[in-house]
């Protein structure tokens, strides 16, 4: 009953999406039967570029002029030689049939018999042909016919598959996504041999025409969510899209939030695991960063390794990470609060030694922390942008300046250095870089709270952050699920990572259509 209802809605919802995609096409230009005119038109449309390859030739004894057009570098020239030009010329010499006199018949012959290419189609629209040529296809004209053949000859150089730079693991697959969307879909297909895996292709960017693929597993994903994703992607109206970050920012729920509402990853194993959980992945051509939607706080704090290691290791690592999240946000503000407002809360021996080390430091704890945390942010940013050989210099300079020199110059206290180090290390322990950035932002918020109201300000800022997170959604899904709203069934994969044999259901928070992961367990 429910399924039928959804299936009907699914049909209804998909149609406006495809209509919308069609509406974005530019006005149609049709082919003329005259080859020279067509070639001229292509040249003028593209501004007579030097990388446009045009090869005209005659077919056999019929005196019909033919031409192939492709863009140098985008099209695979080996393939053009062997499978296209070579075959056409061979046909003329070996075929027992004579070449038919009519150009349309020649096209038909070429299309059906001669060209040994898998992906091939006939086209009458010049605009569509132009788009295809710009994405690496080859067009084959025959003089006198108002049709052309488009041959898929995409074959540009791509980067090899490398280990993901931004998400390292000790244990786990080493392959990462690349800039080529085709390679990326392959990486997912290699892992998900489920016939229900769907790749829904469209393009975004009115000028850049970047290919975008929505990936999901049809009988797991919540179709309401999928429709919402489609609807939001259809609203994207921008001329160029370089990176999936553009998509993320177009479709996010709350643009004022410091928290990421789409997760990006370059790990195919993470994407396939998310698809099996009932999430949606968005792949974009030209970037190795794949978006995963919807985001729940768990997705950002978990690492694929939690599942690859044994459950005790996974659980303890997660506990450590939640602790790191707390330290990353609140350790400087707690330092400020304790030193400035509530020295009584610290054990007296420690309070004395802190006071002794702070003796001679000219600034209040708040200014001291602000300086140190800002310096750390600077170091982190500088380290990111620098070429690798110079990167080490930053480490040395930073380590010396922040650590030793600042203390001996009497600008900061040694305890402050420890606090900064703890904060930095904790924020590096967060698996998602985007979440770590969010934490870096709200850290300042908490520091201001602590500077004004001490520990009371810290708890107020914690409450404010929780209010924000509780209100936050990702594609309409509560960000804090399964904590709030409470879904106790999901808790075995939240802070605790239960043994894999216990993880029988998919996360309830994502409303998967197929909730059960392990059916064999039931029959036992």
């Amino acid at each position: 009953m429910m399924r039928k209802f959804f299936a009907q809605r699914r049909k209804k919802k998909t149609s406006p999406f495809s209509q919308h995609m069609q509406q974005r096409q530019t006005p149609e230009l049709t082919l003329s039967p005259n080859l020279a005119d067509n070639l001229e038109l292509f040249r003028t449309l593209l501004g007579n570029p030097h990388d446009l390859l045009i090869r005209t030739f005659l077919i056999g004894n019929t005196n019909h002029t033919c031409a192939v057009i492709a863009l140098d570098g985008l099209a695979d020239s080996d393939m053009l030689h062997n499978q296209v030009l070579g075959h056409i010329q061979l046909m003329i010499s070996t075929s027992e049939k004579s070449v038919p006199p009519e150009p349309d018949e020649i096209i038909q012959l070429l299309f059906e018999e001669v060209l040994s290419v898998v992906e091939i189609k006939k086209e009458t629209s010049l605009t569509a042909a132009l788009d295809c040529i710009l994405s690496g296809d080859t067009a084959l004209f025959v003089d006198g016919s108002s049709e052309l053949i488009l041959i898929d000859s995409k074959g540009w150089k791509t980067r090899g598959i490398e280990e993901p730079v931004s998400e390292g693991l000790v244990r786990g697959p080493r392959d990462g996504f690349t800039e080529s969307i085709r390679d990326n879909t392959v990486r997912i297909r290699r892992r998900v041999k489920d016939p229900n895996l769907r790749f829904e292709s469209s393009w975004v960017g009115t000028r850049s025409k970047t290919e975008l693929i929505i990936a999901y597993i049809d009988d797991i994903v919540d179709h309401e969510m999928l429709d919402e994703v489609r609807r939001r992607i259809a609203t994207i109206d921008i001329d160029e899209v370089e990176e999936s970050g553009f998509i993320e920012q177009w479709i996010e729920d709350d643009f004022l939030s410091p928290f990421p509402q789409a997760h990006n990853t370059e790990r195919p194993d993470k994407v396939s695991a998310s698809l099996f959980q009932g999430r949606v992945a968005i792949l974009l051509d030209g970037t190795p960063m794949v978006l995963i939607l919807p985001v729940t706080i768990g997705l950002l704090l978990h690492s694929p390794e939690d599942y690859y290691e044994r459950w005790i290791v996974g659980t303890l690592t997660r506990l450590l990470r939640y602790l790191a999240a707390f330290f990353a946000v609140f350790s400087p503000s707690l330092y400020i609060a304790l030193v400035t407002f509530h020295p009584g809360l610290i054990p007296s021996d420690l309070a004395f030694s802190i006071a002794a080390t702070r003796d001679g430091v000219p600034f209040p704890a708040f200014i001291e922390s602000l300086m140190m945390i800002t310096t750390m942010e600077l170091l982190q940013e500088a380290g990111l942008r620098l070429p690798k050989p110079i990167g080490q210099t930053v480490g040395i300079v930073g380590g010396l300046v922040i650590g030793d020199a600042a203390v001996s110059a009497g600008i900061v206290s040694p305890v402050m250095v420890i606090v900064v180090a703890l904060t930095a290390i904790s924020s590096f322990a967060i698996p998602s870089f985007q979440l770590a950035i969010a934490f870096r932002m709200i850290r300042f918020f908490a520091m201001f709270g602590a500077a004004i109201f001490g520990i009371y300000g810290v708890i107020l800022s914690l409450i404010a952050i929780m209010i924000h997170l509780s209100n936050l959604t990702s594609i309409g899904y509560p960000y804090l699920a399964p904590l709030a709203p409470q879904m106790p069934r999901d808790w075995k994969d939240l802070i605790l990572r239960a043994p894999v044999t216990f993880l029988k259901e998919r996360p309830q928070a994502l409303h998967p259509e197929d909730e059960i992961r392990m059916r064999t367990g039931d029959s036992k």
Partner: protein
Amino acid sequence: MSAQTLSEKMISKNHMGINIASVTVGVGILTFPRALAKATSGFDGLISVVISGLVALLIGWLLAKLAARFPRQTFFDYTAIIASKPVAYALTLLVCLYTMLFVSFEIRAIGNIAKQYLFYSTPVEMITLSFLLIVQYAVAGSRIAMLRLNLLFLPVVLVVIFFVLVFTTQLLEIENIRPYFSSSWKSLLEGSKAVGLSYSGFEIILFYTMLMRNPEEGPKAMLLGLFIPVSLYVTIYIFVIGVFSAEVAKNLTYPTIDLAKEVEIPGGFFERVESMFFTIWIMTIFNTCVMWLDITILNLTSMFRKVKKMVWILALSPIIYFVAMLPQNLVDFFAFADAITYFGMIIVYLCPICLLLIAIMRGVKGHE
């Protein structure tokens, strides 16, 4: 949004129970052992806690029944159905006044306690104002998100109180709890009244049942919601009396916080645990406060549908703040608290029970 997502916008039975527990556990729990120790002698206070808990449960059950009769209808709506529009306007306005005063009380309580345990020079006015701003922020968001905060904060608070209790177990002296069963009936009832004030809050079921997925589960939610505070109060009372003895407890302003003061964490990582304890406790007072303000707004918008939520928040906050600043000292403040609760007893206990009787007699029922 889908049927599933829509159902997530409603609250379940357990969630309602946690809401009730969150709203009940607030400032009252910090002070009630004092009033109870004053009224009864030592151990017998427990009987008072249980008696008033049962009375609260009975009233709560009746209120839940009333609200469940009219699913998806606001308090104002069903009062209007039962007892005509003018009565509904008058009663709802009085309820708004009550809940608003309660917000004032809670924010002032935060100010007072924070001043006593956390600050030396920061004025109460600023402490209270900052808290009110956070409360506004919470109420300004979506209602269901606000209620979900209870799910996040209540467990934290319960864990903290559990730790405090664990660490004070060694200080417990059975001698302090004696004598048993020495109080007269009169003093027991007196004690019950004193604790009863700390149970106020469960009447939120009148207003939030309309958000429940199955409104008929309201009474069960009430049972769960009151079970947490009753067991908490019983345990805390035993500990306060056991650690301090009734004589000392009488003279402590906030006996529960002072209980935390006795905690010594092995390893000496923290001193003055009571400050930490109260800091965490702010979470639950915050929950109480937010729900009261939200109910005020909910009732006002149910009467005046054209005025936006934000307008009410901004219009009411100065009044709430002003009222909160009126009591000059602790004596004034607690008198103010008692006055509100007595007022509330008539408005949110007596009147709704009358409404329920009328509804049963007239056979009025809401429809889904």
